């Protein structure tokens, strides 16, 4: 342990000596101090919260991630080039201890900077909101304004099994045209079933069952958020009636609201309405006079937001997630620095970071699949080029998938509670699983590496 701490201390000193790292820290300081002064929100307090957290904290985290990667690469590859690592490896220290020491040193430095940046950003946000509330003459407190909510989505079965059943029937009845692959037909059937489920024609009704978690504060309003499209072109509002019922079918609330297609529509519910209930049913009636059909978005058509926790609690959770990601980047840098020379390691690490940042795009490309020749539908049509590309994207997506996840900063900015399950998953996968795997790979590679040969 002593050797680990000693190496950690050396790693911190080395990071401080790196010009690149120091430049990044200078940028960090500028971002924390100057960015909040220059950024403009949309003029609402919610806008101020979102933009301050997203930009100040997001950029700080981005810079620290870059710096962590760079320091990780430099800690091994750089030290091999400058021959300073030779002084350590010739001592009776295990390669795993070297890895741990270096990782710990860089992580402690960057992690503490992240915590400091978050604290400063939060304090500045709190101060700015306080001033804005005072100027606007509102009675709301900053604590209530930043209160975090839990998002509850309707409890509905997936349409996938039904879509598969229909596809099987269509294939058996030879109803799938030759130029349409089964995967493509499956996607069409999924869309069709989602449309059937979510479309509400004039005077039509749509119902959802919502399981309710307990609300932490009964004085704050839960909020119903819905998004829909309409068969009309444009953003003409569509009148709708919302009825909220308890499990016995008794109406607890019945209100009319004109929903704007494609916009995020909101209904604030009375705070006491959901107290003591574990489930409710929501009913939407398309009450317009004109023959317009409303289609609720399958992914975020209806969400119930329930007050769940104070902001600092969510901030702490998001910090844990960000620290987990930071730890992973440092570990990736150390591994790349062990396996390759410094420029190659830096380039590969940067590429990995870009891949993780563009994971959504990679995932999207991987999902735009055509049937593969080795799938169980030999009727599949498509070129080998498409199969190859799809295969590459699927491999990339599978590789990147454990390293990505939901964006904690987005959740923090939008006031969404970071759930315990999310936290545990992230810690186990990124913190323990991936970092542990990289530690083993790196220490193995380090123990096998012949440091001190000519040219090294």
């Amino acid at each position, binding site marked *: 342990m002593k050797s680990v701490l000693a190496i950690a201390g050396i790693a911190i000193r080395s990071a401080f000596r790196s010009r690149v790292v120091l430049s990044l820290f200078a940028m960090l300081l500028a971002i924390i101090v100057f960015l909040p002064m220059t950024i403009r929100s*949309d*003029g*609402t307090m919610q*806008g101020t919260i979102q933009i301050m957290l997203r*930009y100040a904290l997001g950029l700080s985290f981005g810079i620290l991630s870059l710096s962590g990667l760079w320091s990780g690469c430099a800690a091994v590859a750089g030290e091999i080039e400058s021959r300073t690592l030779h002084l350590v490896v010739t001592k009776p220290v295990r390669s795993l201890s070297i890895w741990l020491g270096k990782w710990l040193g860089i992580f402690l430095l960057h992690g503490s900077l992240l915590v400091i940046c978050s604290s400063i950003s939060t304090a500045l946000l709190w101060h700015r909101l306080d001033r804005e509330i005072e100027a606007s003459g509102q009675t709301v407190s900053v604590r209530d304004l930043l209160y975090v909510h839990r998002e509850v989505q309707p409890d509905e079965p997936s349409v996938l099994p039904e879509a598969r059943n229909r596809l099987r029937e269509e294939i058996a009845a030879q109803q799938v045209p030759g130029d349409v692959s089964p995967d493509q037909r499956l996607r069409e059937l999924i869309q069709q079933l989602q449309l059937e489920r979510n479309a509400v024609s004039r005077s039509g009704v749509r119902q959802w069952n919502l399981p309710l978690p307990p609300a932490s504060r009964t004085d704050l309003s839960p909020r119903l958020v819905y998004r829909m499209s309409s068969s009309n072109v444009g953003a003409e509002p569509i009148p709708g009636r919302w009825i909220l019922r308890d499990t016995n079918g008794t109406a607890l609330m019945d209100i009319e609201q004109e929903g*704007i297609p494609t916009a*995020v529509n909101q209904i604030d519910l009375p705070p006491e309405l959901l107290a003591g209930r574990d489930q409710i049913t929501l009913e939407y009636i398309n009450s317009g006079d004109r023959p317009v059909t409303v289609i609720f978005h399958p992914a975020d058509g209806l969400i119930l937001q329930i007050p769940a926790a104070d902001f600092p609690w969510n901030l702490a959770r998001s910090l844990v997630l960000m620290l987990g990601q930071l730890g992973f980047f440092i570990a990736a840098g150390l591994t790349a620095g062990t396996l390759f020379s410094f420029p190659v390691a830096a380039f590969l690490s940067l590429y990995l970071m870009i891949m993780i940042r563009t994971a959504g795009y990679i995932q999207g490309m991987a999902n735009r699949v055509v049937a593969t020749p080795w799938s169980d539908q030999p009727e599949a049509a498509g070129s080998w080029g498409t199969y190859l590309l799809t295969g590459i994207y699927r491999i990339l997506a599978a590789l990147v998938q454990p390293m990505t996840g939901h964006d904690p900063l987005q959740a923090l900015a939008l006031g969404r509670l970071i759930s315990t399950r999310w936290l545990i998953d992230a810690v186990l996968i990124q913190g323990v699983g991936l970092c542990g795997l990289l530690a083993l790979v790196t220490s193995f590679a380090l123990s096998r590496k012949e440091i001190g040969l000519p040219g090294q």
Partner: protein
Amino acid sequence: MKRLYTILLYGLGLSCLFGAGRLNLHLLDVRREQGITQADPVENAPPLVAFTTVTLGGFRGIIADLLWLRSSKLQEEGRYFELVQLADWITKLEPRFTEVWAYQAWNLAYNISVMFPAPEDRWRWVQHGIELLRNEGIRYNPGDARLLLELGWLYQHKIAGTLDDAHLYYKRALAESLEPLLSGARPDFQRWKALPPNREALQQVKGMASLLDRLRAADMDPWRWSQVHDTAPRELRLDPAWPVYSAFMKRETFERVFALSPETMEKIEDTYGPQDWRLPTSHSLYWAYRARQVARDTYEQVSSRRMIFQSLQEAFRRGRLVQNPDHSLFLLSPNLDVLPYVLQGYREAMAESENPSLRDGYRNFLWDAVFILYTYQEQTKAQSMLDELRRFDPTVDQTSSLDQVVLHLFAGRVEQMTQEEATSVVEGTLLQSLLWAQAGDARRAAGFEQLAVQLWSTYMDPRMNDPQLRERTGLPPLMQLRQSAALRLRESRSPQP
């Protein structure tokens, strides 16, 4: 020898740098002449914009593209909070790209605003769009006629138009933001001219230093008029220097916030008659006038001329604000003074272009003018407009009297209307009469009253001798319709900003 060599190298480097600098000026001149002005230094740019445009070079485009992608994604997801900042950055990265400014402003004012049901939220986004162009885009590109026209369009179409459900709220909010600065429909240009030109000169006015100190002592920033205006105690308002101070601050705030130059406003009034500067039509006229001054090609010249007379035409229809003292009434009435300028604008535009839409527009305008002047009891002018219409379009009925033409114009074939349609037309006309009477415009009230009587008579005449038909399809007595209109007026309330 080595030192001499180093000095020589430094000298050569400096000479090259100097030469490149000199050559760059020449290159800029050539670019200006050829109209390729992307490399022209941005005028009036703050340090941040100047820095990004120079240091990022060609990479600006890539960053702008990435920000644009993010902006589109957020907009698609319904997350609008960041869009003002993103639009700000995108435009600052491409400060000379007219289309970027125009698109971003239009997107904020049109696409995003309609996503909000509450008029106050919509107004905030319309303002964001306007501010992006007015306070930044035009500031960096003062000679860009297209940007000036884009801004004019936002006033002319988004606020002065009636397509947006919240258009009345916009008009009212704009008027209420200008009213305290103008103290009426238009500024007192002579008084504004007599005021000190800047803050330094203001501080030299006798007693001003003492007033400013007293304001500071009362914990107010004397240069923040909104704060002083709302919170200054009575004893400070009685200070002898207060009238000059408040007038100066009103003018300064007006110029800074609305970016309008009093000198140009005065020139516009000299050319096109008095305007109500609380209304969006005056602002579209202002920006179109500015665009006309810097227009470089035919498109810009024609577009700015059109916007000028379209704004004047709109001012003729709804260019005078009628409010009662407690502002519970907000009505837009015609500004008859601008009629000659609208006619002149149309004639000049038609002489310039053969476009048939102009002729259609002119014909429609003449019909409107006949009707509006008639309802204002301006029979002579209405007759003159009818004569002009008949000269311009020989297919127009050449024989009917002015009364008959107006009646036909307003009600169409009123005799053939259903009972419900005729009732609503007559009641609506009486409502107009009451509305104008309440607004203190007796002339127009009388015009509508007269029209309602004529409509009622025209509809009822064929039924007077047929009791059965009268019983089945006849209208209620005028007195009853008047009471109904009065009741409707009491019930109607326009939205409050």
